[in-house]
């Protein structure tokens, strides 16, 4: 088995010990998910584990439930819109913080990250009460606005991380060749930071897809996580676990984006 990076000076014992440790931690991380996914294929009716048998019935039931299907559509719409808004707002904010030195830069960065320090229910309730000021009502637009509040800091954080290795002399060279600021951004900066932008956007979209706290107050009770919560408040059957199988499959689809972003920002020179 090739072990890239290991040198003759590193102790093999340390490598093996750390490997075992990583596998144990990995198992810990995956455990509740594996259980929930296994429940989804259970032939029983409750939350018994191990499941008495295997069956597709809960998956089928979840797919046939109208509320889950409509919830999926609405959550998807909200997530895509949130992703777009967060991508634009977060990226440009990261550029502002990274490329320029101005008074209050540190404060701006703190303000940008502030939404992550308050519980979603607090933000949701507070936004609900300010909606009438903009002529908005609880619904899709309000939900998108609320989710973007969480998405923007995540995109900004990822893009800033991407920008941390950014060579400003590229910008200067581009300027000296006559390119305007927007041109430089579009053709030089953006391709370089696109892994960070993508990772942050995917993050924002998936968090929006999973959001309960904000949607509770800002939507019409019809996003997918809310439907799952409503089901879980009354029923203890695996249909919610079945819906989660879908969400796990969705996260599988997100892996290529994350892999690419990681490989391009973290790959050492071969």
């Amino acid at each position, binding site marked *: 088995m090739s072990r890239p990076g290991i040198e003759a*000076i590193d102790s093999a014992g340390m490598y093996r010990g750390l490997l075992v440790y990583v596998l144990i931690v990995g198992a810990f*991380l995956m*455990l*509740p998910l594996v259980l929930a996914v296994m429940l989804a294929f259970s032939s029983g009716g409750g939350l018994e584990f191990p499941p008495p048998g295997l069956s597709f019935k809960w998956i089928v039931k979840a797919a046939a439930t109208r509320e889950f299907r409509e919830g999926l559509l609405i959550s998807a719409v909200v997530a895509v819109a949130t992703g777009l808004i967060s991508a634009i707002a977060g990226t440009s904010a990261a550029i502002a913080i990274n490329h320029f030195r101005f008074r209050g830069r540190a404060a701006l960065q703190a303000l940008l990250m502030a939404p992550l*320090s308050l519980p979603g229910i607090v933000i949701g309730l507070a936004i609900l009460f300010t909606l009438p000021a903009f002529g908005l009502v609880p619904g899709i637009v309000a939900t998108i606005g609320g989710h973007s*509040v969480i998405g923007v800091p995540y995109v900004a954080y990822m893009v800033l991380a991407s920008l941390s290795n950014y060579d400003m002399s590229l910008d200067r060279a581009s300027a000296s060749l006559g390119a305007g600021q927007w041109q430089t951004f579009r053709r030089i900066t953006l391709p370089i930071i696109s892994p960070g932008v993508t990772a942050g956007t995917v993050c924002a979209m998936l968090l929006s897809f999973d959001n309960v706290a904000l949607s509770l107050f800002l939507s019409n009770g019809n996003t997918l996580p809310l439907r799952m919560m409503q089901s*879980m408040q009354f029923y203890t059957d695996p249909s919610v676990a079945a819906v989660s199988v879908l969400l796990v499959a969705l996260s599988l689809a997100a*892996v290529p984006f994350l892999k690419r972003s990681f490989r391009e920002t973290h790959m050492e020179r071969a």
Partner: protein
Amino acid sequence: MTPGTAASLRRWTPLLWIVPAALVLLPFFFLPLVLLFRNSLNRDDPMLLMVPDFTAINYIKALSDPFYLQLFANTIGAALFVAVIATIIAYPFSYFISRYARRSIGLVVWAVYMPLFVSVIVRVFGWMIVLADSGLLNAMLLKLHFLQTPLRLLFEVDGMLIGMVHRYLPLAILPLFNAMKKIPDELHRASANLGATPSGVIRDVVFPLSVPGIVISLQLTFAGALSDFVLPQVLGSPRFRMLAPAIYAEATTNLSTAMAATLAVLMLVFIIALLGASGYLVKRLTPWMTAR
């Protein structure tokens, strides 16, 4: 374009770059925060719900009544525990990945990110199966005769802390990884050539250079754990009250919107103060890591 206009344009450019974010955050975050603060100065009435007022009574109560002080103590203590444990667990994990597993980074990212992305509702299901009195963990420990009576983990602080460490571990792993991967291999080789043992390399080279990553890791997990609502509410013990569920209960069970707003403002102020203080402390303690 004359040099004068170009210069003044340059001064306004950062503001232009901020406009999109401002368009989102001003109406949907900062304005609600102002409202929150205004609400915290109102008065709660059992019959009339919230009465417009301009009083500091909520703040006085929140900061002097042992009922609320216990709440803050619990939440800060639990968040500190989660942050420290998650960072400690994450450290060797991130070290291994940054040193030996760069080619499997895709699989690692998937395994680490996935818990964040699968609905918290589903994760809670999983924890209930594992931690219940009749759940997986107890069944295993009882069968192996490690225990006589089942461990009470579900709806207790222990279960809640396990669930929270699990939820924030990915958040701790990635900043550490980011910091560690910046340490060039040459440094390892150089210090080995100078006679350091593998553990000495970690102690004297890797650890000091990874401090910024440790700090970010602690900050992210602490802020997250402090403001967590779902896990304390669903896995935790009502005897060990945490801040976010308490805010929700004040608003919805007690119909005390003003008090809920007060607690929220206090939480925000505390987190900001803590993040600011820790950032400053890092700059003082690790002068060799001056920001670029």
